[in-house]
């Protein structure tokens, strides 16, 4: 009997609540901001409740530094606003993707399970973004990455949608089509290379970048004499280097990772056709302090996102250093800082505040607001989003590792060529 009685009170309350809710619009007929959620629903933040931002970054494993750097930048972006947005505290829910597809799935599921998550910052790696976006897009959560670069996630920048493009996906990092253009432009015009060889390792990032380089190099009038690949875990690169040497390239572009790249440069020295390290070119994945100390990388070129300039960025680095006791450890912190600000700015625009202080954030409106981002002034430049979610103001630096550079920061600073599309 007590079971029945205990149900009575909630039932009465909910009936009253329903009536009240039904009557409410009538009471506030004159209110200018009447809220009704769009097709994707809305996030309701009760008064004094925090606004939740989901974060998916690689914070463990080989690529942990990539994610940790960005989590720190996001924390700084929130702290710069006093930890508050529209009078609500801002909190993050950080999930680890370990830079793996499986990690992306798990992290996205964890965030989707929390109805308060209004937007996501991440992922670190393109490989994790593909499955994560399938889940996040289904729930209609706007997602901004500061370090995904695979063309598949957005478009080829010429109007063809990428295979893994999803509504609500944005990024503030460059599209690798641009990085491929930059590397090809440098090799062809600055180095005078006519024949290029590319090596990738089957990863979406490396394959996309090697292909983008090849396309641009051919468009410029050069010839890709060999487009080959190795597989992760290979140690004996001499057979494939024999093929590369036989093709007599002027430049070898291998945007892969360690340790496979270590084996390539160490074994290339025994091939007369490849012994000159100025013929070797890597990408941002190899701009690490353990790679540039290998003697055979002296003379090599690297492409990668340009380090931002300007006083705003210097202030950011000073704040970073004061907070975490070291300089930024990777290349994409400023991109993630911009991503966090873009998201919070958009929330400020679209959030509807009700009289009691409840905040309504409509998911569709938030996405539309982000797609409409134009001339957003960030640390990395002036960002404008296109219809596929590419928002970056990409600047790619080509740097060289010479005898004078001892640390990775010095190598990053030895800029020979800066590429901006449309120039």
């Amino acid at each position, binding site marked *: 009997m007590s079971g029945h009685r205990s149900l009575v009170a909630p039932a009465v309350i909910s009936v009253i609540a329903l009536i009240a809710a039904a009557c409410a619009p009538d009471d506030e007929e004159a209110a200018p901001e009447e809220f009704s959620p769009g097709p994707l629903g809305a996030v309701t933040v009760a008064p004094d409740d925090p606004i939740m931002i989901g974060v998916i970054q690689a914070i463990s494993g080989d690529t942990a530094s990539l994610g940790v750097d960005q989590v720190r930048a996001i924390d700084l972006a929130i702290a710069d606003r006093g930890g508050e947005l529209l009078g609500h505290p801002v909190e993050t829910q950080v999930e680890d993707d370990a830079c793996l597809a499986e990690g992306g799935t798990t992290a996205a599921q964890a965030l989707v399970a929390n109805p308060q998550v209004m937007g996501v910052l991440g992922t670190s790696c393109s490989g994790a973004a593909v499955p994560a976006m399938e889940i996040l897009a289904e729930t209609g959560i706007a997602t901004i990455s500061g370090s995904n670069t695979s063309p598949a996630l957005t478009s080829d920048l010429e109007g063809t949608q990428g295979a893994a493009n999803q509504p609500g996906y944005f990024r503030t990092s460059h599209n690798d089509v641009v990085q491929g253009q930059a590397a090809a432009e440098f090799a062809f015009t600055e180095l005078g290379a006519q024949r290029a060889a590319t090596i*990738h*390792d*089957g990863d979406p990032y490396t394959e996309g970048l090697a292909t983008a380089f090849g396309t641009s190099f051919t468009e410029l009038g050069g010839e890709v004499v060999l*487009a*080959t*690949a*190795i*597989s992760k*875990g*290979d*140690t*004996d690169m*001499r*057979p*494939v280097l*024999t*093929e590369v*040497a*036989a093709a007599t390239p002027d430049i070898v572009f291998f945007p892969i990772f*360690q*340790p496979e790249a*270590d*084996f390539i440069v*160490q074994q290339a020295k*025994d091939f007369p056709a490849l012994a000159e390290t100025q013929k070797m070119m890597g990408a941002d994945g190899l701009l690490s302090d*353990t790679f540039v100390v*290998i003697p055979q990388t002296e003379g090599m070129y690297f492409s990668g996102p340009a380090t931002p300039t300007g006083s705003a960025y210097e202030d950011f680095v000073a704040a970073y250093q004061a907070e975490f006791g070291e300089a930024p450890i990777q290349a994409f912190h400023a991109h993630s800082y911009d991503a966090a600000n873009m998201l919070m700015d958009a929330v400020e625009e679209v959030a509807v505040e009700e009289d009691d202080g409840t905040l309504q954030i409509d998911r569709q409106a938030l996405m539309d607001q982000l797609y409409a981002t134009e001339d957003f002034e960030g640390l990395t430049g002036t960002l404008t989003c296109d219809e596929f979610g590419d928002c970056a103001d990409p600047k790619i630096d080509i740097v060289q590792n010479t005898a004078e550079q001892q640390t990775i920061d010095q190598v990053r600073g030895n800029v020979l060529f800066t590429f901006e599309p449309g120039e």
Partner: protein
Amino acid sequence: MAETPLAPKGPLAARRVLQLPLVDGFLWVVRISAVVVIVVGAYNSLTSGRLSGQQWRDLIVFGIAQGSIYGLIALGYSMVYGVLRFINFAHGEVFMIGAMTGYYVSSALSGTALWRSAPFAGLFVVLLCCMTMSALVALGLERIAYRPLRGKPRLIPFITAIGASFFLQYTVATLFGVDVKAYPAVPVLDGSISVGGFRILRVHLLVIVAAVVMMIALYFYIEKTRAGRAMRAVAEDQETARLMGIDVDRTIARVFAVGGAMAGAAGLLFGLVFQNVNFFSGFLPGIKAFTSAVLGGIGNILGAMVGGLTLGSVESLGPSLVLSGLDIPAAHQLKDVVAFSALVLVLIFRPTGILGERVGGERG
């Protein structure tokens, strides 16, 4: 099908073909198409002139050097299988520990006068350390992980071996870190020499010579010494060997120690050739060496070496010779596919491996 009472008419060969069971017919189709694919691919590659004669010879040398390392590791798999009918899956880790030991000892020695004045003596010291360390680890494995399980169903030590493999990997990762360790440069091994039109890197020459010397030494140890005779006897029939007064436990321990020492030597050679080692370095070479042992005929000492050399050469030459000839893009990405296809093909042509299994008594 084979018992069809009415033999079809026609010439003898045609009748034979029609009487083949379905599976045999399928295997013949596989054999014939494999030969056709290899011949067509090789013909296209060789006539395209993409690689010069010198470059083909280079590829052969690379294959033999890589194969020598596989062969040395494969000896351990093969010897243990011959005696215990069981695959010691932790053997790849014994190899990795040899390579790690080589890194620490050679880094310590690299600043000394010995390293500068007599580099080969220095390398010999490192070699002894690697072989000892790996032999000790292999002995420990046998004593702790395998001996208590002797006589149990074969699946049990097999699972234990996989567990031991992970245990060793992550012990090394915890103790020495997960980062890649770079071997010190050995100036005397830089450069190459020419022998009869073959350009051989000095470090490859060292690998090949060391592998041949160790192979010969092992052969004499097994064939000509009392301990070797005891090993062969235990491999033939454990119970009878015990009745003849052979200490079976000690003989088995000795097999592990010798196999481990060979893997340790291979570890050092791997480190000298590739200059890098980390806690995971043993996994892929271990799998490849196991493949070599099966390829050459498991349980067969000479077969392990022949299998290793075959696998190394196939890996090195296969993508350039066959796949590129068939216009397959990025052929070198498929190196492992080529290696394992070679295993399947050899087993289809010769189910007991190139030189045949040598396993006494009950088969595994």
